[in-house]
């Protein structure tokens, strides 16, 4: 018994008619209230800024850009990028979906502990993660040293290239899928599972045939974030020597000082990214994921793992050890070694506060902006909402430096009083990370039955009051998950922070970068450890705030 195939009611909006986009308005169609479409259009305008800038810049180069794109093995780079995206996305889903189910729906030992620590790899900057992977698993790395002492192995196969890059990015980005699926699982109607079991389907068949299909939209939403993150990552692909679009774009900025060509490449990459966005919408399907039955929903009862408890425990422990334990151990080792060698290391509390402050604001603003976009695009489909939804992903799919330069271009010209203020930095974070909030919130919104608001409406409530009193409260798990994602990734954001922050505004990410760039490992390790520690607090707060069961 999979999800039933019913389409979401087609409703047009006032805006469509105003802009002359829609066809003849059907009788009975509801118009989108301004509280929905205004913020949605504002988000779309914000998101279109990087595109406008990139088009402008690539036109600067004129025919040269087209010629160079042709010469540059662009097709090869596209193929390599696609291969990396595919491997990382699939691997992340294979790690995250079981982990999410285990930590939400089963009696896995230390469930809440795993829930918190498996999200934290998200805050490790990818260049740090990649460097640690090279040090640990490189041809003459720590693993080799260990194997040499045991078996005399003098050299390990080179991990750089596709597999090394894929391993690194997977370990850093699977929490996207994890958080998204967790939020989805909280919202699933347990009645389906129970019904399935009462019909004699058994625990495992229920998982496979009922729970898993219901997880589809949240796996798709998380996977999209993983895919776009992979596409726009620079740190890992550069250190592990795998040439992707973002690598080629950085090369143009960093060594050729060719902004026109970088912009041209970015536009090609955006086209690729938008095809992923369309793919995700297809994977999400038109099925319905909300509760059909009447009566109050109850939390699902925990699945008893029985003898499978310990293999499941080992799985959670292994994922944690690789993605968080290994990096933390290495960082701690560097810190201790540096301090032992007499280096002075400071605990940068001021920078930590700056990081939390800016990232926290970004999380709140992104969530507040994402809620109307989600409701608008899902309840009022049409050309406008189609465009808004696609545009929402542009910032996240671009290399951070391209987005930062776009906002410098507009900020320095048209928003001079805001230029290089915290407001613009938060705005940049929202443009960069908006889809993370969007995806998580959408997954939970898909689980809200439109009948709820319909019945509220029949009781004479206004659309706005329904949104506030009925719809919004049901979206809280997605808002928390989305906020957590934006917060954690903003904590490690580098290019926009360096260029757009108020002058002298240091964050943990900038101090890690400054030290690592000059090969001061101990001085990079201490703020990196602090970054994980500081991020753990709000993460724990959010995770532990997820609805408790069995009360």
């Amino acid at each position, binding site marked *: 018994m999979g999800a039933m195939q019913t389409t979401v009611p087609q409703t047009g909006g006032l805006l469509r008619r105003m802009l002359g986009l829609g066809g003849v308005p059907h009788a009975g169609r509801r118009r989108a209230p301004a509280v929905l479409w205004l913020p949605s259009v504002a988000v779309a305008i914000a998101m279109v800024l990087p595109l406008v800038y990139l088009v402008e810049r690539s036109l600067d180069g004129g025919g040269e850009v087209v010629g160079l794109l042709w010469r540059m093995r662009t097709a090869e780079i596209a193929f390599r990028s696609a291969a990396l995206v595919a491997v990382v996305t699939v691997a992340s889903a294979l790690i995250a979906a079981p982990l999410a189910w285990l930590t939400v729906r089963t009696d896995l030992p230390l469930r809440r502990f795993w829930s918190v620590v498996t999200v934290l790899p998200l805050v490790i900057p990818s260049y740090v993660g990649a460097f640690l992977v090279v040090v640990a698993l490189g041809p*003459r790395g720590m693993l080799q040293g260990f194997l040499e002492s045991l078996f005399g192995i003098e050299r390990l196969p080179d991990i750089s290239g596709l597999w090394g890059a894929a391993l690194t990015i997977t370990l850093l980005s699977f929490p996207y899928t994890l958080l998204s699926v967790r939020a989805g699982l909280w919202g699933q109607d347990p009645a389906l599972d129970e019904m399935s079991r009462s019909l004699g389907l058994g625990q495992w068949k229920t998982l496979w045939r009922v729970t898993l299909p219901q997880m589809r939209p949240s796996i798709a939403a998380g996977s999209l974030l993983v895919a776009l993150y992979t596409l726009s990552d620079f740190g890992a692909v*550069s250190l592990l*020597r795998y040439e992707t679009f973002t690598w080629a774009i950085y090369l143009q900025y*960093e060594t050729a*000082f060719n902004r026109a060509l970088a912009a041209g490449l970015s536009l090609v990459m955006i086209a690729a990214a938008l095809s992923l966005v369309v793919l995700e919408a297809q994977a999400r399907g038109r099925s319905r994921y909300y509760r059909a039955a009447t009566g109050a929903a109850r939390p699902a009862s925990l699945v008893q793992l029985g003898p499978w408890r310990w293999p499941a425990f080992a799985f959670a422990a292994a994922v944690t050890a690789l993605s968080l334990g290994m990096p933390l151990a290495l960082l701690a080792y560097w810190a201790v070694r540096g301090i032992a*060698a007499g280096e002075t290391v400071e605990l940068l509390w001021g920078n930590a506060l700056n990081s939390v402050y800016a990232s926290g604001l970004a999380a709140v603003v992104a969530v507040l902006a994402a809620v109307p976009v989600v409701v608008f695009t899902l309840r009022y489909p049409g050309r406008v909402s189609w465009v808004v939804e696609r545009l929402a992903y542009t910032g996240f799919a671009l290399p951070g430096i391209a987005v930062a330069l776009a906002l410098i271009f507009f900020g320095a010209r048209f928003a001079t009083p805001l230029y290089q203020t915290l407001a613009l930095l938060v705005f940049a974070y929202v443009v960069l990370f908006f889809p993370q909030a969007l995806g998580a919130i959408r997954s939970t919104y898909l689980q809200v039955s439109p009948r709820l608001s319909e019945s509220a409406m029949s009781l004479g409530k206004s659309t706005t009051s329904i949104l506030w009193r009925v719809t919004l409260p049901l979206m809280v798990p997605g808002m928390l998950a989305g906020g957590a994602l934006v917060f954690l990734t903003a904590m490690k954001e580098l290019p926009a922070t*360096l260029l757009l922050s108020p002058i002298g505004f240091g964050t943990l990410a900038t101090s890690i970068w*400054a030290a690592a*760039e000059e090969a001061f490992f101990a001085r990079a390790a201490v703020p990196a450890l602090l970054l994980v520690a500081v991020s753990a607090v709000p993460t724990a707060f959010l995770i532990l705030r997820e*609805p408790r069961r069995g009360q």
Partner: protein
Amino acid sequence: MEVGFRSWSCALRLPFLLCASLLLAGAFVACGEDDSGPGSLTVYSGRSEELVAPIIEQFADAMGIQVDVRYAGTAALAATLLEEGGNSPADVFFAQDPGGLGAVEDLLEPLPQSVLDLAPEWARSPEGLWVGTSGRARTLVYNTENVTEADLPDDIGGLTDPKWKGRIGWAPTNGSFQAMVTAMRSRWGEDATRDWLEGIQANEPIVYPKNTPQVAAAAAGEIDVGMVNHYYLHRFLAEEGDSFKARNYHPRGGGPGALVMVAGVGILSTAGNKDNANRFIEFLLSLAAQQYFASQTFEYPLVEGVVTQRGLTPIEEINNPLITPREMADLEGTQALLRDVGITP
């Protein structure tokens, strides 16, 4: 699903309160900062905070000037300056390499001759738009267990010998490496440089994104020789001690492989604090600041009378080919060559 209105307001009350109070605090902070009067200076520094913050602080304290510094990569800051155009708040651009300064030359103002004269002629812009502040040498970093200095060629040209097959590391996308190739094109000519690049390619070098991982790889024995800048080794030595299994070798025959390059500084023509900017540059070329670079960042001073760090090859012992910025101007030609040979895409 059982999240009613009450628990929703509970769940979000704290973040909302937090947010509101943070915004309020932000507004207060914003009100406090407005002091771009005569006593200030805004620096865009492509040189790392780790390296230059202490010396900039010394300048600020000595002069009583409020110095604001934005730290980021040299190329990213160059791009930032170009996007900001006339609206840039920056007075000074302190760049890691001449390439970054070259990219923004149209935005720079010619420096007074008295400032330019503080540095030797090979270390400043031919148009007088920027001046070098400290030097770094191109060098070969080698693994001390597998290689001795005697094994290494007199000239970097010798690395095309097949005996180095599979033992070399390089970072062809790195700015300093490309500067060295530009120097090769100037000294050896286009064809000899192409032959050298193809010869190294034939030796199947391991490609690194930048200098640091090469130094680590040389010490680990992943490569026997790497082409890097000199000072990264000294940072590793400072953290890991003398047992670190890598050392530098400056090609004894000189040539482009022993190139000494500079970090430099220029003044934006839109700068609002030009006097302070000039003072800043004079300070960077003062004995005190030069001594700081020599002893704290393991770099080479550009003025006479400064003692270099122990363990560092004295600049007099490097067979510096004294290649001028004019000879190194054609970065685009180098990039075209690297693309042509198939080294970069």
